[in-house]
């Protein structure tokens, strides 16, 4: 079942009088439950695709549809609710809130959703256990390793049971061993929970573990391993 559709998307950034094309006539369809990596060098448009799918940015032209919602054209209030309930984000530099504990960070979206505190804690404890970071609930991000912080970030992305998880270079700041572990973990979650993963990477070892690889070059679709479908 189709979950994400980008159709003839153009995205141009303005730097003063200079116009920089980030995506040029880009189209992509992703089904529910896929585990897709956007590959390509820096500046190829990977992050722009994730931002558009996540409702963080709007296309200059073309349409972005996620689960029948016109993400490119929806009003800001609808987009905030979409990000809150239907998308989970994992960032390259974890982006945990430093004044909150690991569990509180993971609970953050649930707090925004006004989920009662006991239910929040129950879900987060279960996720921590599943992600191999049980016992670290009360630690602050500064007391966690990079790998542990990214696991907390994954817990935060999954806690609200989103339909799709978007991860921008989730392993870029991790050593290769931790990166592989984390990738295995995400694949496992994808398999067991059926969560759709769309992430970006320019690391070949990471790309090699993806089920589907979409390559971008200069904002254009260079190749798609699922093109035969």
């Amino acid at each position, binding site marked *: 079942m189709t979950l994400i559709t980008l159709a003839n998307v153009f995205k141009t950034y303005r730097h003063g009088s200079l116009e920089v094309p980030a995506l040029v006539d880009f189209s992509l369809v992703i089904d529910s439950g896929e585990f897709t990596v956007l590959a390509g060098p820096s500046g190829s448009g990977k992050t722009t695709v994730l*931002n558009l799918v*996540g409702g*963080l*940015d709007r296309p200059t032209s073309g349409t972005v549809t996620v689960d029948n919602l016109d993400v490119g054209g929806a009003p*800001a*209030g609808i987009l*905030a*609710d*979409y*990000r*809150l*309930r239907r*998308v989970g*984000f994992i*960032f390259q530099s974890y*982006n945990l*809130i*430093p*004044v*909150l*504990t690991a*569990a*509180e960070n993971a*609970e*953050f*979206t649930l*707090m*925004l*959703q006004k989920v009662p*505190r006991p239910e929040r804690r129950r879900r987060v404890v279960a996720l921590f256990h599943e992600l191999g970071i049980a016992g670290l609930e009360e630690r602050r991000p500064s007391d966690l390793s990079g790998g542990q912080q990214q696991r907390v970030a994954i817990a*935060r992305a999954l806690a609200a049971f989103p339909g799709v998880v978007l991860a921008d270079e989730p392993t870029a700041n991790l050593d290769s061993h931790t990166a592989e572990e984390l990738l295995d973990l995400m694949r496992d979650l994808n398999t067991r929970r059926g969560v759709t993963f769309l992430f970006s990477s320019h690391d070949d070892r990471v790309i090699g573990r993806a089920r589907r690889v979409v390559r971008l070059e200069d904002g254009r679709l260079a190749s798609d391993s699922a093109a035969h479908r």
Partner: protein
Amino acid sequence: MSALAYAWRSLWRNRRRTLITLTAIALSIMIVQAFHNLAIGIYARMIDDGVRAGSGHLAVYRNGYLESREEGLSFLPGDLAKQVRAIPGVSRVLPRIYLPALAQSSSDSRGILLVGVEPDAERAVNPFLKKLPEDGMLRDLDGRDAVIGKRLLTDLKLAVGRKLVVTAQHRDGTLHSELLRVRGVVETGIAEVDGSLLMVGRQRAALLAGMSGEIHELAIILDRADDDRRVFPALAELTGSRPEVAAVSWKEAMPNLANAIKLDYAGQKFIFVIILLIVTIGVVNTLLMSVMERLREFGVILALGSSPARLRRLVLLEALLLGLAAAALGSMLGSLFTWYLVDTGIDLKNFVPENMEFGGVVFDPVLRAAWDLVWMVRIALFVTGLTVLAAFYPAVKAGRITPVEAMRHS
């Protein structure tokens, strides 16, 4: 974890900056509270001294007397004094006569204000008469004893025990004179009063002017100054059946004092506003810095699904917590400072002349505060509100962040 916990912990990210801002707000609250209480204490003391030596907390006059001080505008108190005395909250009722007159000694003469009083009642409340020795006070209502202002005594080259003649206009239009003897000397510190005051028994004054039981003023002393709001309506009801008289508060009877206090407090308020303005600018600066430092985090929060309105509320909540913490600390410091000012006070004896006059009342050089708890709470809440108000611009700025731009921010 709640928004409250997030806001509170965020406040303490930069501990030193928050502490400095919190201290600045708290100190401003302390200063405003303590100096307001000090002003209230000084004014209360001045009002108390003023009303006891002057027109009372409340007074009854014949219509027009206050404006013209025309001695013909007197009235017969009848049962009024007795009825007023029965109103709860009334401590003393003092009937008085005021006559412009001429005082002559063997060596000089002066224009004076002859005041006819009830000696015992007057001595019980008047701070200057209280200071007189037992043998320095008027003995009866119709005696020839006189209590004289110190400067008048000097001007007339008199001494205690010496005689003087007082001449005033009788109701029949002729001039009448009375021979009096100086029994006591008062010094109020107010040059005008000390140079013109001559106090005698009320009946002696009435005899001189042919007033037969009439008075010019019925001064009413209350148990507590703020009882006037309760007593005044009862008094107005009593005087309601007598259209020729009217009840007034000390503010109308002693406009000089009321205006001097009003002017002085307006000056204080101006200083309070400046202090609070400076503090508000500091709070805006702190909160704005705090917001600008967290652009990336706010971008993440927006990306996670928070609405801009919710983000604005988080910034305002931080300001509210800062304001409440500062209000608690400031009120504690303000209470301690006020307690010191009530208990010990500030002694200005070395800095001001001994008898400094303010609004027609002698100023006590030892300044003491009085508690005004309601106002203290109000100013603490006002400053808290001001802190939240100061956060509006930073909050609006936070709400305008776009997640993508903000997350590029390092």
